Structure formats: structure tokens, C-alpha cells
């Protein structure tokens, strides 16, 4: 890695502060007050094997 790459990687951006947010916990929505629907646990209970549930999905 060149120094230019290193400095480029170290360059800060206010955008970096937004990486902790995603579509289920977006900016502007308090998450610990209106917690995301953690539906994956229910999904998992219905379909014990997570991998098998992904067979026909994009994970293939």
C-alpha cells in the first residue's frame, strides 16, 4: 500500500458517522425506544436451519 492510499483511507468524512445506521435502524428513528422488529428469532423458531431457509435466496 502506498502512502497515498494510506492517507486516503485515513481521510475522515462526516459520512463515516452514518455507517452505524441501516434500513431497519435508520437515521431519525430512535432505536432503543422503538426497537426493530427482531423477527429473525421467530423465523428461526419456525425454520431451525437458517442455511436451509436461504437456499432459494440471494445467498446462494
Amino acid at each position, binding site marked *: 500500500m502506498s502512502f497515498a492510499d494510506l492517507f486516503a483511507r485515513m481521510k475522515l468524512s462526516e459520512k*463515516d458517522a452514518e455507517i452505524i445506521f441501516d434500513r431497519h435502524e435508520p437515521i431519525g428513528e*430512535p432505536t432503543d425506544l422503538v426497537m426493530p422488529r427482531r423477527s429473525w428469532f421467530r423465523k428461526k423458531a419456525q425454520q431451525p436451519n437458517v442455511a436451509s431457509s436461504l437456499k432459494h435466496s440471494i445467498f446462494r
Partner: protein
Amino acid sequence: MTPAEIPLIPPSETAAIAGNEVTRGDVEQVERALIDASTRVPVLMFYTSAILWLLAGTVLAMLTSFKMHMPDLLGGVSFLTWGRLRPAHMNAMVYGWAVNVGIGTAIWLMARLCRTTLRYPLLLVAGAAFWNLGVTIGIIAIFAGDSTGHQWLEFPPYAAVILFVAYSLIVSWAILMFRFRRSGHIYITQWYLLAAFLWFPWLYGATQIMLFVVPVQGVMQAAVTWWFANNLMFLFFGSIALGTAYYMIPKVIGRPVYSYHLAAIGFWTYALFASWTGMQRMIDGPFPAWMITASIAALILAIIPVATVGLNHHMTMQGNFPLMRYSPTLRFTVFGAIAYTVFSLLGILISLRSMARYVHFTQASIAYSHLGLYGFYTMIMFGSMYYIVPRLVGREWRYASLIKLHFWSAAYGAMLMVVMLFVGGIVQGRDLDNTALSFTESTQSILPYLRGRSISGILMTVAHFVFAFHFGLMLLGLGRTATLPTFLNPKEEDLVPH
């Protein structure tokens, strides 16, 4: 096939197919589920052992506190004498509670921020088991009279070796997660956590070598001990707590941190100045004046990171303070963040030579330690547990009333303890400085404050046992199954801004 073995596809590919029936939001949700599933066992193991040590340390703390004003209490039992109880209490809290809970939170945060599953989590479980074995052996050794006598380093070398090996095993996993992160950006929390992971082996290793392997001579041992104790608080516990606060506050209120550049300035100035501190604990000791002055100067300069972090958190929270009524995480974390500012300012105050003249060797320094390790660090860790545990066990906290009881007992307990010990320390220092009083007379004036400290300890004991009970319910799967969180004030739910 375990969740850890499922290859997660890069974000760019997921974005490309976002138009299909599976949305990118769904993919993110499954990714988070896999990440949480991979960290579930090790993080819960760290949390469970942390809470067990918290309870043990609390009982030892109560005995220690009561013996300060009731010296005959359990005086006939050799292993329960004050000289063994106090180091056992401190080490149970520092290495049993604080390190375990900090690593548990750090692993979860690192996995989430790196967007990578934890590979071979059972190896991390083995690391946790070894760590707790080391702590157990160390505590037993202290009770058996095999303490080293160095504050915060009382564990004998045979226990320290186990700790060191266990720590290497644990942290190498966290660093590997960072190495194989899938997110291109690095969040400020990762900076703090990574730094903390690397600072601990430096601090612990250097100190063990300088005290036990190739021991330095005479008073320099005291310098090494205080350098370690101070920097363990600042560089390890402080970094983990600040990193956690930088994640929890923005995440809970749903607003990015006020200034990312300010956060970076705060981190680097913290790293630069905090590592110079420690020698201020030996003002007027037999050391070169420059050593102590350098630490005092560094502590004063550390006002820069304190101000930047405080300003950043305050501006991020601005307009959202009412949310503290609803979120347990926010309530504990903001309390801890405020305590960090007070802790830093108090540290500067008691380190100034003119002030240290009165409060040196008094209860004021105990107030300072408790404000840092409890008011600041422990409260932020409690907040992080309220956030993380529901995501690991798939249940919500069962009783809002128990969360409230936990918070108010802990908060009032911590504040009362700090006030009692600090004011008591000033009174004690004034009397110690009065040549007309004998030493015995000077110890009389501190007694009411020590009794007040015991009362504050009772409050904190209530807080810890309530929290342990609540956590136990969660572990047993007895939390609420509702998709909504446990509101602290559920009837006013409609007041929450969106």
C-alpha cells in the same frame, strides 16, 4: 452448517439485486441476525461471568466498607481481614466484572461494526473460561495471603500468566474480526476498541515484567504500579466506555454523532495525553519533580479530549434529552458520559499540588477511583447490556420497574459514595495537616463519612442484585416476547418524537 460458515456476500452485490423480491433491508436484517447469532454464546458467557463477579465483588465491598468503621467485624477470621478483603474486592471488580463486561460489549460492537460473523466462537468461550479461571485463582491466592501487595496487581504471577494467555486468545479474535471487516468505513468506536485491545497487553505485560520478572528497585515499583493503575483506567476501561458511548448515544436517538472530526481529535489527544498520567498520585514522593509535573501537565492537557468528547456527546444529544425517560440504554450511557467529564475534572483538581496537599492519602482518591470505574465505566456498561442482551436472547427486558430501581439505586449510590468520600477526604486531609491533632483524633472526623459510604454501598448492592435477577430472567428465556422494547414510561409512549 453453522451461521458462521455462511458466506456473506459483499454489500455491492446485495445492492445490485435490491430490486428483486428480497430487499436490501431484508438482507441487512438477516446479516445482523447471523452476526448476533455468532456472538451470542461468547458474549453471554462474558456477561454472565461478569455479573457473577459483580455480585461477589459487591459482597466483598460491603464487608470492606463496614470494616472501615467497624474494625472488629469478622476480625477473628484471618482470610476476612481488611488487608485481604480490600484487594479481593478490587480485583474481583476490576478483572472479574469490568474486564469481562467490557470484552463482552466490545466483541459485540466489533462484530456489528465490522459486519462480520464471529468465526469459531467456541474458542472465544475457551478464552473466557481461562480468563475466569485466572481471576478465580488470583482471588483465592489473595484470600490465602499470597498477594503481591501492588495495588490493582495483587494477583500472583501464576494467575497473571493465565490471564495474559486468556486475554491474547480473546483479543486476537477481535482483531481478526477487524482485519476481515466487510465495511469499508471505520467508525470511531472501532478506533477506541482496537486501541483498548492493544493497550491492555502493553500495560499488563510491561508492568508484570518490571515488577516480577526483572523487578525495578525501590520506589520505582510504586511508580510502575501507579502508571499501570491509572492507565488501566484511562486507556483500557476509558477507551471501551467512550467507544461504547459513541455507538450507543447516536444509535439510540437515531442521529449521527455531531462532529466526526471532533471525535477523531478527541481520540488522538486522549491517546497522546492519557498515557502520560499516573505519576501525579505520588506528589511529594521521593521522585524527580519532572516525573510528577509531567503527569500533572498531561492530566491538565487531557482536558482537550474531555472537552471534545463532552461537547460532541452534548451536541449529539441536544434536543433529545427527553428520550432518556424512555430508554434504559440512553439513561445509563448519558449518566456515564456526564460522570466522565466530572471524573476528569475531579482528577485535575486533586492532582494540583495545592489541592493534593490536603487530599493526598485520603478518601478523596477513593472517591476519584469510584467515580471513574463505577460512575463512568460501569454505568455505560450497564447501558450497553440493556441494549445488547435483548438482541442476543430475542427477548425484551421483562420489568420496567426493575430497570428503574436498578438505575436509581446505582445512580444515587454512586453519587452518594463519591460525595461522602470526597468531602470526607477533604476533612480528613485538613485534620491530618493540623499538627495540633494526633493521628488517632484525625481518624475520628472521617467516621460519619465512612458510615455514609456504607449506606451508599447498600444502595449499590440493591442495584446489582436487582440487575442480576433481571439478567437471569433474560438468560432463562423469561423476558417478554413483545417486539416493542421495555419502555420506562410506557403510558407516555406517544410523546416519543419520530
